[in-house]
């Protein structure tokens, strides 16, 4: 039953919902209610939402959350691939994915491994899915998703944690794997061509003295460091709360621009406070999850510790801005 459920969820995460899925979905409590009556409209809405969520805002890949680079096909991905290879498991033919550590694939792999009693199933669950999927699924909630994806996230989270054995990680052990540091692509920081030299220069003499902008971006945009996945919507909400102009771009561009705008309008302290508040909300969310699922305690602690560090980091930046 659990493996069957994992397979269904794996498929639903892996691609947009298809017409052939509807007869099954209509029998699944929690998901059925989230679908509108008009079949064509429902599927179109879900396809659009799928692209908004996973195409534009939240990459559903382990390496984004676990790797120091926060990039796709990073060493963290190779770690998942090795596990698949050792277990003799391969993604089904014809599947479209950008990297093999897609949440849908990991769920399908777990289903197969549980079904055949593979030795790899516990490592996949304990060292991979339990570590990153809850953060991914909690982040999804912040994106105000379509009710279908909200319910799917709740159920997937519950199923992963339900499947997790007691005390999966010995006390005092950080569940994050050791991975190579992120490659340095940019060398000495320089503005890209076409960009005015505003970032560092604008921030110097204002708030962020002594820290390069690169460090700020690297910390806040890399979940492994920050303790959360900062979405474009999070940043937009922070900017909106301060009545800063709207920003469009990828996460890095958005964060850089919001920082610059906040500096320009002397609202950096307020911006940092918005981000601190977000971190605190996530600390609470991780605590709630731990309360309901004690087996997840070691993971919660690891992520919470990173959020605490981020709060410290933001407060230091704020102090520099005040100086």
């Amino acid at each position, binding site marked *: 039953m659990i493996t069957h459920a994992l397979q269904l969820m794996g*498929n639903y995460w892996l691609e947009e919902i*298809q017409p052939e899925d509807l007869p099954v979905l209509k029998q*699944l409590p929690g998901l059925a209610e989230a679908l509108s009556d008009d079949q064509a*409209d429902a599927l179109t809405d879900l396809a659009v939402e799928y692209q908004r969520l996973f195409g534009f805002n939240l990459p559903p890949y382990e390496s984004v959350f676990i790797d120091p680079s926060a990039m796709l096909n990073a060493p963290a991905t190779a770690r998942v691939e090795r596990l698949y290879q050792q277990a003799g498991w391969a993604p089904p033919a014809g599947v479209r994915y950008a990297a093999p550590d897609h949440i849908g694939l990991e769920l399908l792999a777990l289903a197969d491994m549980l079904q055949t009693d593979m030795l790899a199933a516990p490592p996949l669950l304990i060292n991979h899915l339990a570590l990153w999927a809850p953060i991914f699924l909690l982040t999804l909630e912040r994106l105000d998703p379509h009710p279908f994806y909200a319910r799917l996230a709740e159920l997937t989270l519950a199923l992963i944690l*339900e499947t997790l054995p007691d005390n999966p990680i010995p006390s005092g052990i950080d569940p994050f794997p050791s991975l190579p540091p992120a490659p340095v692509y940019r060398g000495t920081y320089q503005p890209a061509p076409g960009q005015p030299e505003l970032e560092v220069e604008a921030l110097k003499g204002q708030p962020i003295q002594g820290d390069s902008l690169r460090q700020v971006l690297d910390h806040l945009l890399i979940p492994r460091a920050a303790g959360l996945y900062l979405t474009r919507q999070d940043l937009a909400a922070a900017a909106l709360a301060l009545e800063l102009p709207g920003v469009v771009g990828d996460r890095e561009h958005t964060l850089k621009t919001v920082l610059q705008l906040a500096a320009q309008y002397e609202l950096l302290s307020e911006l940092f406070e918005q981000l601190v508040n977000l971190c605190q909300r996530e600390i609470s969310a991780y605590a709630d999850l731990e309360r309901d699922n004690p087996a997840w305690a070691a993971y919660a602690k690891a992520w919470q510790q990173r959020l605490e560090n981020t709060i410290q980091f933001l407060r230091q930046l704020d102090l520099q801005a005040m100086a």
Partner: protein
Amino acid sequence: MNKRLNRFLEAVANLSSPTRLELAQAGAASQQQSAVHRKAANFSALPGTQVSLPSASERTDGDEQVGLSSYPPVEKWDEWEEYDPKAWPERIKRRYMLIPTLCFNCESACGLLGYVDKDSLEIQKFEGNPLHPGSRGRNCAKGPATHNQVYDPERVLFPLKRVGKRGEGKWVRVTWDQVLDDLGARLRKAFQEQRHNEVIYHVGRPGHDGLMEWILFAWGLDSHNSHTNVCSSGARAGYAFWMGLDRPSPDHAKARVILLISSHLETGHYFNPHAQRIMEAKMDGARLIVLDTRLSNTASLADYWLSPWPGSEAPILLAIVNYLIHTGRYNREFVKTWVNWKQYLKAEWPTEPCTFETFEAKLKELYKDYTFDFAAAESGVEAEVIRQVAEEVARCEGKLATHTWRSTTAGNLGGWQVARALWFLNVLTGSIGVEGGTSANAWDKWVPRPHNLPPHPNRWNELTWPEEYPLTFYELSILLPHFLKEGRGKVDTYFTRVYNPVWTNPDGMSWMEVLTDEEKMGLHICLTPTWSETAWFADYVLPMGHAPERHDISSQETHGGRWIAFRQPVRRVALEKLGKDVNYTYEANPGEVWEETEFWIELSWRIDPDGSMGIRQYFESPYQPGEKLTVNEYFRWMFENTVPGLPEASADQGLTPLEYMRKYGAFEIRSGVEAPYLQPVEAELLKQATVDADSHLVYSQTPAPASPNITPHPAFPGDERGRLVGIQVGDQVLRGFDTPSRLLEFYSPTLRDWGWPEYAIPGYIHSHVHPEKIDPQAGEFALIPTFRLPTLIHTRSGNSKWLYEISHKNPLWMHPKDAARLGVRTNDLVRVSTEIGYYVIKAWVTEGIRPGVVACSHHMGRWRLQDNAMERWSSALVDLTLQGEGHWKMRHKQAVMPFESSDPDSKRIWWSDVGVHQNLTFPVHPDPISGMHCWHQKVKVEKAQPEDRYGDIYVDTNKAHEVYREWLAMTRSASRVSPDGTRRPYWLLRPFRPTRDAYQLPEK
């Protein structure tokens, strides 16, 4: 357990319908393919178009399937409905006709589908045509941006005629009739007075195949002038001296090793079709090696990125050659059979045994000094890296795909030897005409013969083919201003077409001087889809169509295969589908934008209205004798008669060939690689054949039938024994290569006999920016000014707001070490001085360029002389002043600003800078052999001086002329070196080839 989860799991246990996975596992998903197990669909219903489409292509309009469809199914192209994206989330349906056409931005001719609104007949958007064999439904940014070009509020919509002085910027609107009458009379007079050579047609982006051969031959002209020697002459020469044909066609998708001296994952010809296949090969395990001084996007994806000093690529390649030879890891049988080693030994070592073993020994000796250490010393690339690359090439298993086109071959003196050294690797590995290897372009290209191709002209135009350059590929177009200044001739009527020499060519101020001199340039007609710096100096600016506004046929060697595609005016086609008659394309296009094919037919009738000059006959209908040919008839005849397989494929669908091409936009003539050199000579030709006992060449007295494919080839009229048709190999007579020896010419008797014996074999020529010619202590650098950006295409994309929003600056790339030495930081102003002037630009400090070299993209720096003229999206308003004879100064007056227009986006322009026009400050550098303008420059870079401002340009055209004379002095003129009294080896490729008599040098 979580209650919700519990209920969910119970429901899962009691499911009464099959899941997606179960459907797939049961194999019952042919109609409802699972997301997990979906397979690619195949448009097998279209004969001749075996195009596998991405899986989503089978999805339809939302009734049966949902999600983000990739391509509408072809059976719905006439009746396609989709929601209006601007009305979302309201679901308002729009009805479209999807009309295939071809992109007209770069040369690739990728397929587009124009979405023509059935109610308004406006074009909603452009997407890819999945049935196009080259692009397979995929496009780069420039394809969809065609929409901007059509709806650009700044475009020229009506024929304009200059009033006032040329270049003064005063225009009046005229009718097409007035234009045709004026030009017809002028050209008739010129032809009647035998002043044919005073008419020159100068083209930048042709966009069509075969058209101008028909037009210019009909007029009896040798007046074609191309952009080739600012583009590809170097590569062409290097390839042609080896194999006769002048362009490579790599089969990237099946290669084991891909070696690029270019950045074809991001730019260049044929970037989009090549890039997708390079990625396929990479996914299949191929190794990608990239030689590029600059860290391009392509280099960033390579397994090996080599950043050589500009012009040092040949020693790297020859070190690999040396490695293959010395380790014996080359295809001995292929080399023994297909290389002209006997010719080499007999010519250079006549006393030694003429055996392959002797040749092998000589090869070892010839290339022994090209060690990895030598290559490393010349290039700055580590010897160990070169060794690793050599090892990769050695392991290619005969599947080595290579490519160079512009890049170093277009940058350096002797750059053509880089192409020759690169092709040497294909020769040694036997990777020629095989799957995963590299072919000649003509093997994968098809240009259908029109119904009435006129004979070759009996004229030679010295203004375009001067005798100083007997081996050039091809016209010395960049030298025209200097030839006119020297009084070598005059131009009565000068057509520029989709060409902007004032901006694109080096030494643009010399062009401006000549274009404004009515004594030298009688009448300048600019056929253009958009304003340009050159159009400003025209007498007529004639608006010609963009991609969806014209007819052309195009066939490009994008991969191992052969196809032909059809560019169409989509609104005209839509109108005709709706039953409305359209006589001329300009009736359907915006304003009175026309297309060249109809324009030339009309103009030809105006030149020769009664047929007495022998011109009109070529423009009469093959279907209604004596009647004027229509554009439909022109293409219809070719599709019915000279495209193999198309009539049959059309008949299978119940369509005429023209209807087939109108419907699908492309036809695949052949899928897969073909090697014509291995094909047996037709038995008919061998009936009256002679075999030369020494060379094994085969001559035939049987007349040559007219080929339905008029892709230019070398010519071998032969001698008293007949035409050269092949070579005897063992007991077979094969076609062989298109060279005088029918073999791959490692040793070029042509170079030897025409004055360059020292370069008869592949070798290394020091570039004009070789390190020994650069003094870093004096602030000197080698400048790479040639690289492209993925989102722009020369000056033609200046009318695309989407593309300019993405890319609008061209800073000077400089390594941090150099920057530190000069005290320069990013965005600091620097002055870059060339031999004839300087420009002032911002620096970009980056490790993406090697120390000692600076680089600047050529795509930027558009300018205009009047505020309300030209593309305001992309050009700066400038002051241009003459400060003494030949001393020009340009200064930016105003950056790009938002402006009012019919397009509300013009008020939303947020960028201000459009870069700096560096080409103005470059003198001409024509390679004495290939004729290639060697783009790289030795420059001095220093911090800007107090009076300097961003965008400042200074040029001294007197010095420009001196530099021209210096490079001219490097040539070896035909009148001095020709072995047979002709201007050029007759066999060598030459577009618009005149008669053989015209090749004779004039008697002095």
